């Protein structure tokens, strides 16, 4: 990082300067989310073919997989901000972590809910205590625990530090979720998409899934920015 860009980075690390920038970015990310979701749903329902084994039930994939990805990704970003705040004592970092938690919890719940509704027709049960499902449920409890802990502490700076410790310890659960289908014999299927090999599904199914993943990503950025602006105001910055 050059000195100039480093200075710019730290300039925006101050809540007062970040606040108007976040306000300008919200409509951009919001619009991107809407357009990507429209494209993703169109591909998911009208372009992607019916699955030979699962019929139309598989179309849950277009929200289930992106939501599950976001649930893990948001946690990593949240823990990153929390760690940054703990290390450098920057106020905005803690606020970013706080702003991400409810959206992360929401996507975790959506991943569990849609997984449950997908499990019934394909596995014959809404729920099973296998490694993937259980570790994802623990992720939901980590988010809720983080939010409850922060809500229980009046001093926001102390709440940030306490939450940060919880968030960082909880990171250990993310690789457990991700690799659970390899480490344990689970009912949940393995990854159909990986960085190492071509996806094992029709191209249009993959396209719909990626479009929805980007839509959820842009949505998460937009709502997190709105929430961090609320937090900046509420803390009287």
């Amino acid at each position, binding site marked *: 990082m050059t000195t100039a860009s480093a200075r710019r980075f730290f300039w925006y690390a101050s809540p007062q300067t970040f606040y108007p920038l976040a306000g300008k970015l919200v409509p951009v990310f919001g619009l991107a989310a809407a357009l990507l979701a429209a494209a993703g749903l169109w591909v998911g329902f009208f372009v992607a073919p019916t699955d030979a084994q699962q*019929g*139309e039930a598989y179309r*849950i994939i277009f*929200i289930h997989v992106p939501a599950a990805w976001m649930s893990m990704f948001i946690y990593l970003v949240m823990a990153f901000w929390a760690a940054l705040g703990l290390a450098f004592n920057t106020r905005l970092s803690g606020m970013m972590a706080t702003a991400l938690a409810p959206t992360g919890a929401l996507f975790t719940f*959506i991943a569990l*809910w849609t997984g449950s*509704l997908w499990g019934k027709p394909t596995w014959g049960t809404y729920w099973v205590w296998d490694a993937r499902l259980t570790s994802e449920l623990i992720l939901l409890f980590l988010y809720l625990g983080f939010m409850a802990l922060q809500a229980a502490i009046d001093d926001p700076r102390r709440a940030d530090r306490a939450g940060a410790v919880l968030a960082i310890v909880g990171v250990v659960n993310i690789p457990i979720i991700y690799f659970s289908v390899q480490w344990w014999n689970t009912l949940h299927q393995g990854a159909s998409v990986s960085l190492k090999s071509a996806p094992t599904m029709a191209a249009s199914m993959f396209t719909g899934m990626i479009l929805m993943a980007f839509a959820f990503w842009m949505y998460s950025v937009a709502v997190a920015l*709105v929430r961090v602006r*609320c937090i900046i*105001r509420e803390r009287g910055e």
Partner: protein
Amino acid sequence: MSEFLAMGGYAWYVWGSYGVTFALLAMEVVLLRNRSKRHETPS
């Protein structure tokens, strides 16, 4: 249209997933909008 809505007999599972997802995301947007408005100060 009705064939589309029937989702090959999986309507409850597919629309139950999409419906709850959309409702929750819409709820988050509405709650955040209210929270933003609550302490909007003319600047």
